[in-house]
């Protein structure tokens, strides 16, 4: 199983946090190192000054090296921090005064500037400054070494304080960076989310190109997406055109076949032949109707993307359709009773679509009505326009409208009647395209009742 890749936001946040952590650690160590060095340099400076002050007080003479320890040299060592102080003055290899076990420097040169080194001494660690001086004793130069040592507790305390501050600084900057990285991630990803939203909000038939303003980085994606949409739109449109043309091309020869069959039937004397021709005519009729429905459906699908939006008088449309179906109804001795069309009912929409819906409703009602019954076609208005078509057919036999309205679905009890099953689908799609709805219910006293609701214009 492939693992889902990390989300962009998480990836971005993690990477920014990683960078922030590295920077915080670098900051911590930099501050510490710089502060440690500064503290050490300061303390070395004071220690060196004290050592030099003692070296300055060295005096030669006839009896030996004299030294007058300057009070201030020691006093100043205590001025920065309360650290322990040790010293040793060595003349010609002999310890003159001080702490005899204080460690000597490794390389004893004639250094004018103090040499610094760190050593373990007694129970602690000390920093030692050493200065060499030549002193004349009985006119002979004697090397004198002055050592002053100081513990570094003060410096360690400073270092500890600095470390705490540095740690706080590091953590603080990391926390800040964390917040900022969250904000940044949100910011960077916002155009993507906006685009996803815009595309996601589209209706099922909306195949316009995406013209959302997007950052340059997303433009290739938009470009590709639009290309894909265009291809899809082209393919759909070609398909519908194909179906429409195919239906059209089928209908015309069918009409010819039907005309010829009717003539042949009238001329034929054989009852057997006439029966066969009647069946041929029925089949041709049904094929023609299916072709018509396919054409209607293609029209609905094709037009619902770019519907006209004009004011239409439903009353007139209903009257016209009722008129158009009267010859077909007469064949079965059906009465079409039209009510509610005495005053105009205006809706906004696409005329061919609404006509297709009405046509299919009436066609269905007539098809399923037994001979010598009445089909009621009524128009009413309330908060919306309602067109109701009721027949006395065999009803729905308890099947849900949702299923019946599916493309190519037909009722269980429709087996003996020829149909493509597209009719109700077309009605439902027209209703949806106009923001209306379609209901199909059992009619009291038998039959079905189809209602098409359309918003008033």
């Amino acid at each position, binding site marked *: 199983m492939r693992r889902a890749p990390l989300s962009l936001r998480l990836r971005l946040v993690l990477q920014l946090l990683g960078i922030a952590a590295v920077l915080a650690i670098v900051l911590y160590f930099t501050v510490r190192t710089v502060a440690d060095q500064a503290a050490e340099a300061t303390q070395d400076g004071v220690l060196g000054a004290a050592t030099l002050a003692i070296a300055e007080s060295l005096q030669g003479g006839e009896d030996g090296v004299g030294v007058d*320890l300057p009070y201030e040299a020691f006093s100043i060592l205590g001025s920065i921090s309360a*650290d*322990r*102080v*040790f010293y040793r003055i060595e003349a010609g290899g002999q310890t003159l*005064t*001080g702490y005899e076990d204080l460690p000597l420097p490794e390389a004893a040169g004639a250094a004018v500037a103090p040499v610094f080194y760190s050593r373990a001494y007694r129970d602690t660690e000390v920093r030692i400054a050493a200065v060499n001086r030549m002193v004349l004793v009985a006119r002979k130069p004697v090397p004198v070494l002055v050592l002053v040592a100081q513990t570094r*507790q003060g410096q360690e305390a400073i270092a500890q304080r600095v470390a705490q501050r540095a740690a706080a600084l590091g953590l603080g900057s990391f926390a800040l960076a964390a917040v900022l990285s969250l904000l940044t991630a949100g910011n960077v990803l916002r155009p993507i989310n906006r685009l996803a939203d815009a595309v996601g909000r589209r209706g099922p038939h909306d195949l316009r190109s995406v013209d959302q303003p997007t950052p340059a980085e997303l433009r290739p994606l938009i470009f590709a997406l639009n290309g894909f949409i265009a291809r899809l739109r082209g393919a759909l449109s070609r398909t519908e055109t194909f179906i429409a043309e195919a239906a059209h091309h089928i209908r015309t020869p069918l009409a010819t076949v039907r005309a010829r069959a009717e003539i042949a039937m009238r001329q034929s004397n054989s009852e057997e032949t006439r029966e066969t021709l009647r069946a041929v005519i029925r089949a041709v009729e049904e094929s023609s109707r299916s072709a018509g429905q396919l054409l209607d459906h293609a029209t609905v699908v094709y037009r619902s993307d770019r519907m006209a939006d004009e004011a239409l008088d439903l009353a007139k449309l209903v009257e016209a359709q009722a008129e158009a179906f009267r010859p077909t109804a007469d064949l079965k001795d059906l009465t079409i009773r039209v009510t509610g069309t005495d005053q105009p009912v205006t809706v906004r929409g696409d005329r061919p679509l609404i006509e297709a819906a009405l046509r299919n409703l009436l066609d269905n009602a007539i098809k399923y009505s037994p001979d010598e019954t009445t089909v009621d076609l009524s128009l009413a208005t309330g908060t919306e326009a309602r067109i109701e078509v009721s027949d006395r057919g065999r009803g729905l036999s308890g099947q849900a409208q949702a299923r019946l309205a599916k493309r190519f679905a037909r009722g269980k009890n429709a087996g003996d009647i020829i149909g493509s099953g597209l009719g109700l689908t077309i009605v439902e799609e027209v209703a949806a395209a106009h923001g209306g709805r379609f209901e199909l219910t059992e009619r009291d006293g038998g039959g079905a009742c189809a209602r098409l609701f359309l918003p008033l214009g």
Partner: protein
Amino acid sequence: MRAIVLALGLILHACLAAGFPVEEEMLFPAPETERRELSILSTTDTGVLRPLIAAFQVREPDVAVRYTVASSQAVYAAIHDEGLSFDLVISSAMDLQMKLANDGFSAPHDSTATDRLPAWAHWQDRLYAFAQENVVLIASRSGLGGLPLPQTRRDLIELLRGHPDRFRGRIGTYDPELSGAGYLFATQDARQSDSFWRLAEVMGGLAPRLYTSSNEMITDLKQGRLVLAYNVLGSYAEPRLAGDDDAVVIELEDHTLTLLRTGLIPVTARAPDLGGQFLDFLLAPEGQRLLRDEAGLPRIDEAALSRGPHLRPMRLEPGLLVFLDGLKRRGFLDEWAAALSQD
């Protein structure tokens, strides 16, 4: 009372097997069943700290206190050279205490009581001051015979120069060679101003009497053997001269040294926690009040220093080590001897 303590001390002294000169040793048995013993080595007389020990034992009734008094040099040597075990070392010799702490003989100690101390009253967490005492000049009015009381060292030098006969053999001061406190005062005086050496020279011509303790100088002044005593501990002089109309305590205005009496817990302590407890008791408000009211030792008081601009508190710092250096000490004492015997 004092006599009894002294007598007891002498008896104990006789019994003591320690290899250093003990002046007095006193055992304060625990008020209740004894569970622990606190041993204190101190330069401060038993009588001075007795009320504090008693108050401490009220709080800690199962503690017996062994209180040993010795000279500051002996106290220093007992810890530094002999490594004897005591739980608390109290001394007025700041320089020697500082050296003990600097050389690592003092154990760290931290508590809420020590946290309250001002920065100048402690060194690291190893040396704590619990009393600040001025170093004063004491004079006898009758001995001066109507001469004006000197207010500065310059006054004093002029007074001595002007009336050598009155003061000959009747001036007292510490012997810096024998007394640790005397050496500390003399060296710090010398640091403060050059007038110290002129004073030494003038005194040298007047056959001064040299002492090893403030108490002896105070006694001799009260008994008329001294007219002036220079560098006496004010904390000893003031209570003893309080009812004496003839004696005056003078804080010289050019500078008056302020000594810090300090305590430290040696690393060799058997019961360092007890030593720390007693030290905290001395530093806490109750102990500080008892020190002032009962022991006559001025408490640590920053305000007193700012009120007296002539006061020069000696700082607990490595500078104190300088005069403990063998060469430096020899040089200083040579100069002192030369100043004193110029004629």
